[in-house]
């Protein structure tokens, strides 16, 4: 057996298992390099347009390399910094409050149903799981938030609907079950610790990987959400970054609802000098910036998180 392993090692030149031939290896690398470019190129195009001169874009279309480098779009956005800063504020507030509450609520729900001696564990597991199987649809859901709770146009309407997630409850429950030894919990109980103290003092510190995973996914969900804005936000307050982008693609003038910018446009003779094409793309860069910078860091934990707990009902 030992000799055989040895033979594999020398013939394949690697520890674990056999290697690809050099040519095949090069082809596979080439494939991934090309695909990686396919992933980045669309963003590169947007970046390039945002740094271009408006006239050259209007005449020659979007190019990968700016024909005339120009910061006019960003200067224009800077003039209208009020709306952008406000939208950033909305997005950050929704994301931070939403994620923090969400993680606490999900963990609090997952803990009791992870305890085998809790007689109603099965019932409450099913109570959450069933929401993954059946939904009442958009109309009644909308009416609950708008008619019953009267949350239209509020920040709460951008937070509450995404707080609870049956999927993450089940993932967290599985993690608690598998990671926190029952014996530790029992001995803590015998020592007289209350359930709340056991939860915050033992369970949570042992479960940081799953807590971090839920937090990361919820952060992304809240930051990227525009559907709740589309449905619940009808006035011009509480416009998140994503929703601002949505409104901009449909209507460039939305940004210039700000009086200073509007005056600027009027002074320049209506829409004539308004760099609408490049401003639009500059706003995408401003909107997507935090994600692009945070994601290489995020992604490491994401990958770990994806394998954290299997969901079985």
């Amino acid at each position, binding site marked *: 057996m030992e000799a055989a392993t040895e033979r594999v090692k020398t013939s394949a030149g690697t520890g674990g298992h056999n290697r*690809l031939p050099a040519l095949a290896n090069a082809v596979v690398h080439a494939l991934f390099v090309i*695909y990686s470019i396919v992933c980045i190129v669309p963003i590169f195009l947007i970046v390039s347009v945002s740094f271009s001169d408006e006239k050259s874009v209007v005449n020659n279309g979007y190019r990968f390399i700016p024909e005339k480098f120009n910061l006019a779009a960003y200067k224009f956005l800077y003039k209208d910094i009020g709306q952008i800063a406000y939208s950033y504020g909305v997005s950050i507030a929704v994301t931070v409050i939403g994620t923090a509450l969400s993680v606490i*609520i999900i963990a609090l729900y997952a803990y009791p149903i992870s305890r085998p001696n809790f007689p109603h564990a099965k019932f409450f597991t099913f109570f959450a799981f069933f929401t993954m199987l059946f939904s*009442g*649809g958009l*109309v009644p859901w909308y009416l609950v938030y708008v008619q019953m709770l009267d949350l239209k146009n509020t920040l709460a309407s951008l937070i509450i*609907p995404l707080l609870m997630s049956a999927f993450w409850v089940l993932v967290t429950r599985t993690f608690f079950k598998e990671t926190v030894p029952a014996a530790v919990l029992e001995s803590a109980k015998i020592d007289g610790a209350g359930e709340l103290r056991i939860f915050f003092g033992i369970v949570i510190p042992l479960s940081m990987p799953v807590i971090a995973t839920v937090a990361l996914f919820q952060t992304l969900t809240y930051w990227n959400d525009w559907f709740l804005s589309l449905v619940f936000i009808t006035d011009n307050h509480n416009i998140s970054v*994503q929703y601002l982008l949505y409104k901009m693609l449909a209507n460039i003038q939305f940004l210039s609802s700000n009086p200073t910018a509007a005056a600027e446009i009027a002074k320049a003779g209506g829409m004539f000098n308004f760099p609408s094409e490049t401003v639009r793309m500059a706003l995408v860069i401003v909107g997507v910036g935090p994600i692009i910078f945070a994601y290489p860091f995020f992604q490491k934990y994401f990958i770990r998180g994806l394998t954290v707990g299997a969901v079985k009902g």
Partner: protein
Amino acid sequence: MPPTSMEALAPARAGGSGEIKPRKRSLGSILRHYWMFYLMLLPGVALLVINNYIPMAGIIIAFKNVNYEIGILNSPWVGLANFKYLFRSPDSYIIIRNTLLYNSAFILLNMTIPLAFAILLNELKNRFLSKTYQTIMFLPYFLSYIVISYLVFGFMSDEHGYLNGTLLPALGLEPVRWYFTQEVWPIVLPIINTWKGMGYYTVIYLAAIIGIDDEYYEAATIDGASKWQQIASITIPLLKPILTIMTLLQIGRIFNADFGLFFQVPRESGVLFPVTNVIDTYVYRTFLSVGDVGLSSAAGLFQSVVGFILVFFSNWVVRRFNSENALF
């Protein structure tokens, strides 16, 4: 599924006074003993009730002619009139067809291409490059469909898009009015969907492949098995459980379209509706743009019920073949 067996209640009784009591009393002692657990569950339960269970009761709207003046409960019942109206309109066929065909294509593509990528990625022995590819491939997953709609617009805009402005003229082709040309979207949308999900699915499959014991491959190499043979007789069979679960999860949701993809990316171009309208966008538009509550909730309920049946059906199929791979 409340626990009905005596075994389920046993630990609670042991925790209580220890006497044998009628069931009703023992429920009281459960509540007394586990009050902290119920308190912990409370916020989550409240949210599930608001967000999921009250709307479930709201499905009665689909059988009513809603009049907000007198309230939903007092509005007159109309039986199946909303459903009849829905299925008589040509829209119903289009939205069901589009939803099913697109999702079928997505399921197939999300299984095959990321699986192939994961297998190839696993063969690369350069850890640094392999990680770099993974990181870059994951980027589109982090972008919202609003941002993606801009990226697509950058290429496909009629006036200034890269395709019409640079690429097509360079190839000597006429510009195409992409947002008015139906034929291209059944190809464009699956490409975008695959592009967005590639990193996610590749990582899931790669994690499963890495989990396979190296000894299988060592033994196969000793027996002279080629790479293809190893993939076909070791990797794929051992990935069957994860492939089954991933596919099952998606088949259960085959009636639910990705709203963002179909709503944002085609930029609500009416000309494209025959190839981009799906159940979810139809429900949204009939309700919030047209304001037809009855029709919209009928379509929504139809979607929920069929989806519910599909989850159970696909789970039942899997359970028949291999109960370990079933979801529940």
